[in-house]
C-alpha cells in the first residue's frame, strides 16, 4: 500500500536519513547548549549592573553574537568550509555539518539564555549575596536553576531551528532528510520522496516540541 503510494521511497535509505538528521540535530544541540549557555552567561554577567560588569567584554560578546546571527546559515556553511576541513578532515557528511550548525545556532541560543537569566528575580540574587554566596554559587545554584524553564524552552526553539538547518546543510551534502529529499527526490523528480521527507521532518519537529514543552512544564514550580 505504502509502496504503491510512494513507489520511489526505499525504507532502509529513509531510516539512514532519519538517523543522520537525529545525529546532526542532537550532537549540534549539545554543542549549542554548552556554547550558548556560556555565551549567554557572559552576556548577562558582564552587562551593566551584572556580577562581572565589564563594558569591553560585554561589547565583544554582544558583537560576536550579533555578527554570527546576522550571517545567513547557507553562507555560514560556505564561509566555514576551510575551518571544517581543518577540524573534521572533510566537508561532506553529517559530521562535517556540525561546526556550522553549532556556530550558527549557539549565538541564537545565547540570546535566549540571556533573556531567561534577565528574568530571574533580582531579589533572589540579592538574597544569595546577603548570605555570603560566591559568584559561582550564584550562577550554578541561583541563576541557572531559577531560569531553567526558560533555558529548556529556549533549547526546544533552538532544536527546531537546528532541524531546519540540518535540512539546509543537506543540500550541500551533509546527509539527513534534507539531503535525501534534495538529491533523491528533487533532482530525480521523485516528488513522493520529497513529500515523505517533509512529513518526517514535521513529525520530528513535533516530537521535539512536545518533549520540550513537557520538560519545561514539569520544571516550572512557580
Amino acid at each position, binding site marked *: 500500500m505504502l509502496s504503491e503510494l510512494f513507489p520511489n521511497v526505499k525504507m532502509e535509505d529513509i531510516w539512514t536519513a532519519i538517523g543522520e538528521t537525529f545525529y546532526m540535530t542532537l550532537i549540534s544541540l549539545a554543542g549549542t547548549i554548552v556554547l550558548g549557555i556560556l555565551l549567554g552567561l557572559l552576556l548577562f554577567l558582564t552587562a551593566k549592573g551584572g556580577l562581572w560588569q565589564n563594558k569591553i567584554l560585554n561589547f565583544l560578546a554582544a558583537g560576536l553574537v550579533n555578527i554570527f546571527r546576522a550571517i545567513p546559515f547557507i553562507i555560514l556553511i560556505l564561509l566555514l568550509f576551510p575551518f571544517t576541513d581543518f577540524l573534521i578532515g572533510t566537508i561532506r557528511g553529517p559530521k562535517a555539518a556540525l561546526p556550522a550548525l553549532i556556530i550558527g545556532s549557539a549565538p541564537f541560543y545565547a540570546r535566549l539564555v540571556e533573556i531567561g537569566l534577565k528574568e530571574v*528575580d533580582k*531579589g*533572589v540574587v*540579592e*538574597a*544569595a*549575596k*546577603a*548570605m*555570603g*554566596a*560566591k559568584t559561582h*554559587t550564584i550562577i550554578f*545554584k*541561583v541563576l541557572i*536553576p*531559577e531560569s*531553567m524553564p526558560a533555558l529548556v524552552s529556549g533549547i526546544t526553539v533552538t532544536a527546531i531551528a537546528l532541524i531546519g538547518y540540518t535540512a539546509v546543510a543537506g543540500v550541500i551534502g551533509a546527509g539527513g532528510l534534507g539531503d535525501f529529499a534534495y538529491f533523491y527526490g528533487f533532482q530525480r523528480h521523485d516528488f513522493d520522496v520529497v513529500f515523505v521527507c517533509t512529513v518526517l521532518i514535521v513529525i520530528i519537529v513535533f516530537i521535539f516540541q512536545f518533549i520540550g514543552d513537557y520538560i519545561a512544564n514539569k*520544571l516550572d*514550580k*512557580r
Partner: protein
Amino acid sequence: MITIKGLKKVYPAKHQDVLAVDNLNLEVSKGEIFGVIGYSGAGKSTFIRLLNRLEDPTEGQIYIDGKEISAMGKQQLRKSRQEIGMIFQHFNLLWSRTVRDNIAFPLEIAGISKGKRRARVDELIELVGLKGREDAYPSQLSGGQKQRVGIARALANNPKVLLCDEATSALDPDTTDAILRLLVDINEKLGLTIILITHEMHVIRKICHRVAVMESGRVAEQGDVLDVFLHPQQQVTKRFVEQVMGDKDQEESLHLLENYQNGKVARLHFVGETTNQALISQVSKQFDVAVNILQGKITQTQKGAYGTLFVHMEGSDEEIARAIAFIKTTSVEVEVDADAE
C-alpha cells in the same frame, strides 16, 4: 553590637546626585530590637543594605560585633555576611527549591555537610512553625508562611544580627502580628540583635525597644520607643505617632464638659504602664465615685501600656479629691480638666 559612624551614601546621577543616606550615626546594643521608621524614599532600604554591604558606603564606618564591615575585603565580607541574616519584603525565596531546600541554601553556602544540614533545617522548621510544609514549593505557601521560610533561612547559620527590610509590609494585619510575635520570640530565645525597617508605626510600637526616625537620609530623632511616643520632637515623628494614637489636639478640642452638670473630667496618662492597668476598677471600688470613660486610646508597647484616657468622675467633691490624690500616688499621671459646674 553595631556602631555606625558618619555613614553616607551617594548615588551618582546625570543631573543631580542622590544623597540617600547622609551622615548617619547610630549605636545598637546586643539583643536589642531596633526600629528604623521613615516615609518612602527616606533612605531606609539604602541604610540597611549598607549594613551588609549590598551597597558600598560612600563615606563612614560600620562595625558589627567589633569588626569593621566597611573595611573588609571580598572574602572576609562573605564570611561576615554568613553571620548577618536578612529578610525581605518580598521574601526572595527560590521558587525552584522546596521549603527545606530554601532553608538549606545558606548552609550549603557555608559548606555544612549534608547530614548536618538536614538536622539544622529540621530544627529551624520547628522554630518557625512550618512543620508539615517541608516539601512544599514557595508558590504553594501563603505570604506569612513564605516569610517564615525567609526567617528560617536567615537564621540558618546562627547569625548575631538580623536585618529586616519591610518584612511585614506585604502581609495582612493578622499575619503581620504573627510574624512580629515570631521575631520577638526569636529575639528573646536566641538573644539576637534585630534591625527592623518599616513605614508603619504600629510595627515599631509592637516590638521595638528603640527607634530612629529617618527623613531625607538623616536620623531626625531617636530614642526609646516610649519616649518617642510620649515626647515626639520632630514633625515627622509626630505624624508617625498620630498613625497609632490619633490626633491629640483634635481630642482636646472636643467639648467634653458640656454634657456634664457635675463631677470632674480628668485626663489619665498611662506612660509605659504595667502595674496599674486595673486602675479604673480600683478607683471605683475604693472610693465612692462613679467613673465613666469618655474617650481615649491606650496602646501596648514593648514597655507596657501607653496612652490617654478621658474619664468623668461623679461623686462628692471630697471623695473625688481623694480619688485623684490616690491616682497621683500611682505612676499614672492625672490632669483635672475643669469643674463641671
